[in-house]
């Protein structure tokens, strides 16, 4: 039900890549090989451009290289060949510390296993999204509460992460990813640990955030969920085999029925 709302919303405001501004993300001929015999080609010749405001679903079988791709985009991993640009900055030329700075300010992450500090409250987990930018504590807390309200957890601010449900935990993680107002949010199987109903809620939330202007990349290996995204990139064996723009997605995912 909420997903249909999301789809309707997408239908009225189709993604409008603004060619005038630089892409948020640009990958050129990216490869990631792991030494072995024969070498494991986790990624091979991947090129991808994402513009501000896009919502991109990345699908593919297990082991196809989706996480590797996302980690390279997020500057957590380095490609063995090719070039990656975040907002026009060549990542390869950055030192480890500069890449950390880039992540702190411009990239938000959402993980399948949430990665929350269990003994900390929701608000302090979210405020950690600003920790490594040197934002003063008071201001962090204020922004964290705002972010929690945006993800619909205004009533769970002081709850410990360990006491929250799976869906609530992922909302906290999403709030943490958006609290610093990043250029791009990268979500690796954000619904992988959630039941189908909660998954739909989380996807709707991400859709709403995107509608408000946040650029989001979501990995999922659920084809049905992925079909809801206006743009779907299919990865197979380390290569992009399909990059599909759907202005008006028609398929209603089974998960919401």
């Amino acid at each position: 039900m909420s997903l249909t709302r999301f789809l309707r919303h997408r239908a009225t405001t189709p993604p409008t890549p603004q060619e005038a501004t630089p892409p948020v993300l640009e990958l050129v001929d990216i490869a990631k090989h792991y030494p072995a015999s024969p070498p494991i080609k986790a990624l091979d010749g991947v090129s991808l451009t994402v513009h501000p405001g896009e919502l991109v679903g990345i699908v593919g079988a297990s082991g196809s290289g989706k996480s590797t791709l996302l980690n390279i985009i997020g500057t957590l991993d380095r490609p063995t060949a090719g070039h990656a640009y975040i907002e026009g900055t060549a990542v390869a030329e950055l030192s480890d510390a500069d890449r950390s700075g880039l992540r702190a300010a411009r990239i938000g992450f959402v993980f399948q296993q949430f990665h929350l500090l269990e003994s900390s409250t929701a608000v302090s987990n979210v405020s950690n999204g600003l920790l490594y930018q040197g934002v003063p504590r008071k201001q962090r807390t204020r922004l964290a509460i705002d972010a929690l309200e945006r993800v619909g957890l205004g009533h769970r601010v002081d709850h410990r992460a360990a006491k929250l449900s799976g869906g609530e935990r992922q909302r906290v993680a999403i709030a943490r990813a958006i609290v610093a107002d990043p250029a791009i949010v990268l979500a690796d199987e954000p619904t992988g640990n959630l039941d189908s109903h909660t998954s739909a809620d989380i996807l709707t939330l991400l859709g709403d955030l995107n509608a408000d202007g946040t650029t989001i990349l979501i990995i999922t290996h659920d084809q049905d969920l992925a079909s809801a995204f206006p743009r779907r990139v299919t990865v197979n064996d380390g290569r992009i085999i399909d990059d599909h723009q759907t202005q008006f997605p028609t398929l209603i995912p089974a998960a919401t029925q």
Partner: protein
Amino acid sequence: MTSIPATATQHPHVEMQRPRSKLRAADAIATGTHGLRSRKGRTLLTAIGISIGIASMIAVLGISASSKADLIAQIDRLGTNLLHVQAGNDLFGDAAQLPPESPTMVRRIGPVDQASSVSALDTDVRRNKYVEDNNGLDVFAAETHLYSTLEASLAHGRFLDSQTSTIPTVVLGAVAAQRLGINNLQGAPVVDIGGRNFAVIGILNTLTLNPDIDRAVLIGNDAAETFLGAEIVPTAIYLRANPEHIEAVRDVLPPTVNPADPNEVTVSRPSDALEARAEVDKNLQNLLLGLGAVALIVGGVGIANVMVISVLERRGEIGLRRALGATRTHIATQFILESATLATLGGIIGTILGAAVTYTYATQQNWRIDIPIEALALGITAALALGALAGLYPATRAAHLDPAEAVRPTT
């Protein structure tokens, strides 16, 4: 590919300030203690490990300082200006005799305040004439002012005076009284010396500096001549001299006492023996300190161990922090701070423990309590340094975890 492809330059954009990671000091501290706060049980146990080493070192320093303070107070009280002159031993190992005029000569030395001689008599003392003498006690003929020279005190009765020196009376040293079984003067106790009864008129308190007097019974010079037919020849002289010239006095004593054979004369300062006791303590103290240091190192290795485990367990947290923008330095700092905090906590517990042990022991021994502030500061500083050192390796490992690996789900 060596050159940056054209696609990058198709989208020139205003060069914005490169974002930099930074962590405020207060946040670094909060981050560095977060792991400890969320694992309180483990934190306490690990801290206790290091606290044992610190506690034992503090206790060793505190107890020996307290014991030393007590000894020094004791030496001060007894005085370091008492000298003991002896003629050395003759061929048979008995105390040899000093020239008869030697006490007078000694009194003429400028810085000498007072001097008294004793003469060891060749006789034995017994409880009565029916028991064997096997008590190892000496009989000394003494001058009446020996009492003031030694700064002695009486447990019972009085000391020899000009009158009692001439009649058959004795004053017992503390050990002598005990061995003779005379604990007080009730019933007018007597002892047998050379087959003759002598009335006990006084019992001395223990003389810490003069155990030889403790083991002796003292009679007056006149009484010794009259009733034992002894010839009074000094065998030892006790003297008090001006403390500032004590070394000079020491040097002139042998030629003054026995100009013919100065090498025969031995001069000793009884307080030296007490000071030597403090030096003996030093060796023991070093040994115990060494053991404490070993305990400390074991505690440090324990901390390093716990930190390594912690880094393995918190792979996901480290990956998350890298994803949130932490640099390697931030991660390393977090774990070094955590390790140092853990150890400092142990240092504080250990310091309190060590001070408590010192307090209890010193109180039990009736000592003055003296816990050196430097020892306390040193204990906590040592713990802090050790903790930082122990954290170095785990922190380096944490900092060099591959962030992409660290955020991957553990399967």
